[in-house]
């Protein structure tokens, strides 16, 4: 591949102009890798390399490895991942979920849910939903919820007289609550990528925002199950049984309470909550429930590491792709293109939902978030959408993707683990898909469902209106020069993501993102001048490039990202801002 790049270098020496047939190259690489069944990280990585080759940022860049890394330094992006404190939350939540899933927690949750809801019409189905919701809050995974709760509840529902279709459809659908009810790993990944696209999202806010839609979907599913389960025999209500099962399951039930309560009350942030959940899960399952033994831990931890590894490497290469989109201002170009359609917030989210439903049919949820969030989040921001609300729209859409053929993961899980035909599972899920689609519409057009609880916490109005009907405008109205020295400028794109102390640095709608500012010609000129001043005599002076056609930078000159990471530069920026 490297020699291939060297061979093409001659064509690129002239100027940093798009390669002839660059679009074809990108499509060919993408399709080729997909058709060859390459792992996802290779597909995204190959796509990124193709993009940088076809549309290089700097001229004379492909005549050497050093020149290539000037355009595309993927390893540096990978290393920057270590600067993201929130990433640590992902393996922690995975471990806690894995530990709790191994234990006897599912049986305890089911017993309690049965005691509370079993006496209602459709009681066993309601218990299934409640158990799925609680289990989801512990495991954070949809397929694991389907398997664990389904293994207990599906036979019980069928034995109690529920139609098998209802049971299969319910288990498969209610399992998807795993990614909406926090903690949710897709939410963490959304926060990271939305923030890298300049729409700063606080993970704690996103977690709290997931509670409302989770409860809404649970209630809608429950309503359907009450209608369908009216004729089935049910248990008598017993207060003592409720108390008994509550006490038996208190530690299992309290874990989501500790995590969400702690975050909501501001006792700790999401990453700390994740670490605490690992310790609590170990204490509960090793010492109290005694359902796992210490010698089982290495297997659980290794399993979590493998899962983490398969996700992390995708995130790493996707940062390169996000960087390409930021450098080339792809979101602004799309906004410019969409502006011609005179999209309003209403029509935008309608199109967004259609797009994400299609994506959900064809793509794994993590991949979909990684690829589409950097593209869509800035556009949604332009239209006045809160990035947390957009996050929930993403998650609910992709939750539905777990149930839509041909690639809905939960469909395959139910088919293989419960030994049902694929067609039967799809037919069973169909009515639940309609319910989920209705809840998607509600979550989309009633932002309060997602944002209300967080607003209450922050002493703001509970009710959040749908964004005003403003028409999408192109993003290229650069900021005034005196607006450039913002706090955010002191950070590099990845650092500007999540304020782990809980203080949300979410920019107001309409503010420019860091990437936008970084693309601003005035800003870049200023940075280059500063870099040249700071280099002294040892390094060749960076040329100030006339816009709009930048000249090639001399070897040795730093990229803007390099400069922004320079401690001297940061110090200087802080001093300048304080002086202002």
């Amino acid at each position, binding site marked *: *591949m490297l020699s291939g790049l060297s061979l093409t270098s001659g064509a690129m020496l002239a100027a940093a102009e798009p390669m002839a047939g660059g679009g074809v190259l990108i499509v060919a690489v993408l399709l080729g890798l997909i058709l*060859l*069944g*390459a*792992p*996802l*990280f*290779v597909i995204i*990585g*190959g796509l990124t*390399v193709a993009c940088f080759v076809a549309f290089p940022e700097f001229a004379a860049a492909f005549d050497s*490895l050093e020149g290539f*890394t000037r355009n595309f*330094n993927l*390893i540096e992006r990978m*290393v920057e*991942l*270590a*600067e*993201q*404190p929130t*990433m*640590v939350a992902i*393996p*922690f939540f995975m471990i806690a979920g894995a530990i709790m899933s191994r234990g*006897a927690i599912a049986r305890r949750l089911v017993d309690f849910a049965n005691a509370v809801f079993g006496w209602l019409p459709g009681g066993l189905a309601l218990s299934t939903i409640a158990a799925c919701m609680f289990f989801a809050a512990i495991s954070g995974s949809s*397929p694991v919820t389907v398997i664990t709760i389904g293994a207990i509840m599906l036979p019980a529902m069928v034995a109690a007289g529920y139609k098998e279709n209802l049971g299969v459809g319910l288990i498969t659908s209610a399992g998807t609550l795993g990614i909406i009810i926090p903690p949710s790993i897709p939410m963490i990944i959304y926060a990271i990528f939305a923030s890298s696209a300049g729409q700063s999202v606080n993970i704690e806010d996103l977690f709290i925002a997931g509670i409302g839609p989770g409860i809404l979907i649970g209630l809608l599913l429950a309503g359907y199950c009450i209608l369908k389960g009216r004729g089935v025999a049910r248990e008598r209500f017993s207060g003592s049984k409720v108390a008994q099962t509550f*006490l*038996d399951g*208190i530690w299992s039930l*309290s874990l989501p309470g500790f995590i969400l309560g702690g975050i909501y*009350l*501001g*006792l700790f942030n999401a*990453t700390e909550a994740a*670490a*605490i959940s690992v310790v609590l899960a170990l204490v509960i399952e090793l*010492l*109290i*429930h005694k359902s796992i033994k*210490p010698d089982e831990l*290495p297997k659980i*931890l*290794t399993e979590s*590491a*493998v899962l*983490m*590894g*398969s*996700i*992390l490497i*995708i995130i790493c290469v996707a940062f390169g792709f996000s960087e390409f989109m930021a450098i080339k201002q792809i979101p602004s170009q799309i906004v410019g293109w969409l502006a011609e359609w005179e999209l309003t917030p209403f029509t935008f989210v309608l199109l967004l939902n259609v797009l994400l439903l299609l994506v959900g049919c*064809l793509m*794994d949820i*993590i*991949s979909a978030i990684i690829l589409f969030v950097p593209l869509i989040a800035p556009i949604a921001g332009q239209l006045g959408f809160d990035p947390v609300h957009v996050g929930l729209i993403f998650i609910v859409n992709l939750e539905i993707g777990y149930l839509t053929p*041909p690639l809905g*993961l939960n469909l*395959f*899980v139910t088919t293989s683990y419960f030994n049902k035909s694929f067609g039967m599972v799809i037919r069973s899920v169909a009515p639940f898909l309609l319910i989920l689609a209705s809840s998607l519409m509600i979550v989309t057009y009633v932002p309060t469902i997602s944002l209300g609880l967080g607003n209450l916490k922050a002493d703001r109005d509970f009710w959040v209106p749908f964004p005003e009907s403003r028409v999408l405008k192109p993003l290229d109205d650069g900021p005034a020069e005196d607006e450039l020295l913002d706090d955010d400028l002191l950070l590099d794109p990845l650092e500007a993501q999540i304020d782990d102390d809980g203080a949300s640095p979410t920019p107001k709608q309409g503010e420019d993102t860091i990437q936008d500012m970084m693309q601003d010609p005035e800003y870049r000129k200023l940075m280059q001048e500063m870099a040249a001043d700071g280099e002294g005599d040892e390094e060749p002076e960076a040329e100030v490039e006339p816009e709009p056609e930048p000249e090639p930078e001399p070897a040795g000159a730093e990229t803007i990202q390099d400069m922004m990471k320079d401690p001297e530069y940061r110090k200087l920026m802080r001093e300048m801002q304080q002086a202002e």
Partner: protein
Amino acid sequence: MSDPKGSEAPSLAERLDRQVHAVEGGLVTGALLVMALTYFLTIVYREMRAETSAFDRLFLDLFFGFGTVQEAKDAPEVLARVKNVVTPLILGAFTFGMAILAVRTRERVDLEPGAEPPPVRWGRRLGLAAVSTAVAYGALKVIEVTPARVLCLVALLAMLGPAVVITWRRRALGGLAGAALGGGLMAWFFATKVEQAYLWSAELSSVLLMYVGFIGASMATRERRHIRVDFVRKNVPPRFLNLYNALGGLVTVLFIVFLLVLATQYLSSQMGHGSMLQATGLPEYAVSLPIALALVLMAVRFAGQALADLRGFLRGEVPAPTGPEIH
């Protein structure tokens, strides 16, 4: 380096790969435990040492309506009462209550479904709960007053001990080597870089995350568990599936080798700089080292798998179907 599915004895390369996999398992297990432990210790240490803990602030707001600590500072007697009486009392009572329930659960955990529980011995239950509460509080105090270096070394030994026993019993020499290697490095770090407090823990966790993530990616390669878009694969005739896998593997190897060249270049430039991470005092290249190491292993493993797939195709073998990958 795929797992042999047939009855053939594993080759030297396969046995070596298995040992490397076990070493990786030992390393990631230790790293994850250290990450969780140090993060937890940091939270406890910070809250125990804080002038006003998160719980103090919560109760100040809840019971006395002080929205900020600054407001509470204007009423020092209230602040002192919350800090010295209200918070310890509420947390103590809560822990005691939960401990009673924990003892109750432990007593009933071995009961068969529907079996009559034994008569409640309240004295024993309350006594055990009181002891548990005291132990929990004592542990928090120990974390507060013990220097981080000592506590981390003791905790590391406490984790390594059982790990050595378990791996030794199972004759899992690779795992033992991984635990010893990881444990040794961590012991060196705690002994030489850590002093009183935990300012380094977040940075250490981030560095360890790179090791966990990239070693995990390497392990995922061996287990063929990387996420794929596989709708084409599902439609490939079984006879050609091995060839298809081999081609995909070959492309993957090329891409990984490309990344490896970039990673090596980056690593050598970082080693040349000799700069250190701020909080941990570790060399900066400690962050990029696992990337290069994992890419080497991944390249070798993907190449081995591609070769095995190609051989399988030439022999006319059909690979076993795989189930859905659960995440």
